[in-house]
């Protein structure tokens, strides 16, 4: 089971790194949104640093979403999904390997890049640190929730939009607690730990529900 997990993880990481892979796409999309917003808002540094965490979180959410429709669809199209069904490991392990690989090439780079992009929205050093921490524990929730949608729309030709409509409502709690944790670190009435712990809880719940849900969706889908 560990062997299958590792084989699939390595394969997906390799694919992301090759030409046409989704490796840097999310990161570039993230960068585009975060660079555009200061231009649109104008040079008001106070305003920017106040809404900075929100901008970064929305950008991270959209960047996670943008490549998600290919998560299972690519395997569905070339028949690999049939091969993945033949493993000794249950389909949940297959889903887990794919989601972990996806997070490593989209979620993790976003969290690592957050301090640099924080400069663009005039975040304080504490704010940058809080952004890295919240994105690090919050983006797994986004990926796992998205995986259910990706599994449901795997056999649809243009499933990207339906996927977004399906999963966005479920991503809102993560967004709320992610932004409020980042804001709490910048000063405020609530301690940082309160929303941060809820964010961790959301990620853990999403990890279980997302894995089981996506596997169930793949089983029932033709």
């Amino acid at each position, binding site marked *: 089971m560990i*062997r*299958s997990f*590792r*084989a*699939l993880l*390595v*394969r997906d990481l*390799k*694919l992301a790194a*090759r*030409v*046409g*892979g989704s490796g840097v796409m999310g990161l570039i999309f993230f960068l585009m949104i975060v660079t555009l917003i200061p231009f649109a808002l104008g040079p008001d540094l106070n305003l920017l640093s106040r809404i900075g965490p929100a901008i970064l979180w929305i950008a991270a959410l959209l960047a996670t979403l943008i490549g998600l429709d290919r998560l299972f669809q690519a395997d569905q*199209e*070339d*028949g*690999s999904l*049939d*091969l*993945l*069904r*033949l*493993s*000794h490991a249950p389909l949940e392990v297959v889903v887990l390997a794919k989601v972990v690989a996806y997070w490593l090439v989209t979620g993790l780079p976003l969290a690592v890049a957050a301090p640099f992009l924080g400069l663009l929205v005039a975040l304080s050093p504490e704010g940058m640190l809080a952004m890295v921490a919240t994105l690090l524990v919050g983006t797994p929730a986004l990926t796992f929730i998205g995986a259910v949608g990706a599994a449901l729309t795997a056999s649809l030709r243009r499933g990207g939009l339906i996927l977004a409509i399906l999963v966005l409502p479920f991503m809102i709690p993560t967004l709320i607690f992610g932004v409020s944790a980042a804001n709490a670190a910048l000063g405020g009435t609530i301690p940082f730990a309160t929303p941060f712990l809820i964010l961790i809880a959301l990620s853990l719940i999403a990890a279980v529900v997302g894995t089981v849900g996506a596997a169930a969706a793949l089983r029932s889908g*033709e």
Partner: protein
Amino acid sequence: MRLSVNNLACERGERRIFAGVSFTLRAGEALVITGRNGAGKSSLLEILAGRLRPAAGVILLEEAGERTLAECLHYVGHRDALKAALTAEENLAFARDFLGSPAMTPSEALEAVGLAHAARLPVAYLSAGQRRRVALARLLVAHRPVWLLDEPTSALDTASQDILRLLLERHREGGGMIAATTHSPLFLADAKEIRIERRPTRLEGEPEEESA
């Protein structure tokens, strides 16, 4: 090991494709599935591979220990299940690690299907026949007793067809089972054959057919 299929029926899009398909496969036996285009040959294999769910009927795998049918089979369908961005060797290495019970190494398997020279090429650069051979090489990298092959000879030249026939024979001698759809007769020596017929549309007033 014995695979028995009893009264299998298939429905797609609320339409009955076939019904009442039964056969038994023992170790070393081969089954050739024939029928017209659209008769449901591929659907039958997809049901066995766990991709489609049967509308009725039972699939039983006996004397296989604790393994499920999915863990005992190789499936090579119309789509080659190869990643175009990876090389032939990487594709096979993944299958070997992922499927478990490894047999040949990827380079040995590619050699066996006559593709040793293309091992380092991304699959995207290979021709249809070459891709098909890489997909068939997957049969050799992991040991699985049941092989499900959907039109295995399509896109293959005569030399490759001979290699394939040899591989299939060797698999049967080793106690393996093969179920293959094909349009070319005499593809497998002394194989059982079932012909799948598209069911005629039921006339009005006819009694409802029993569903097992």
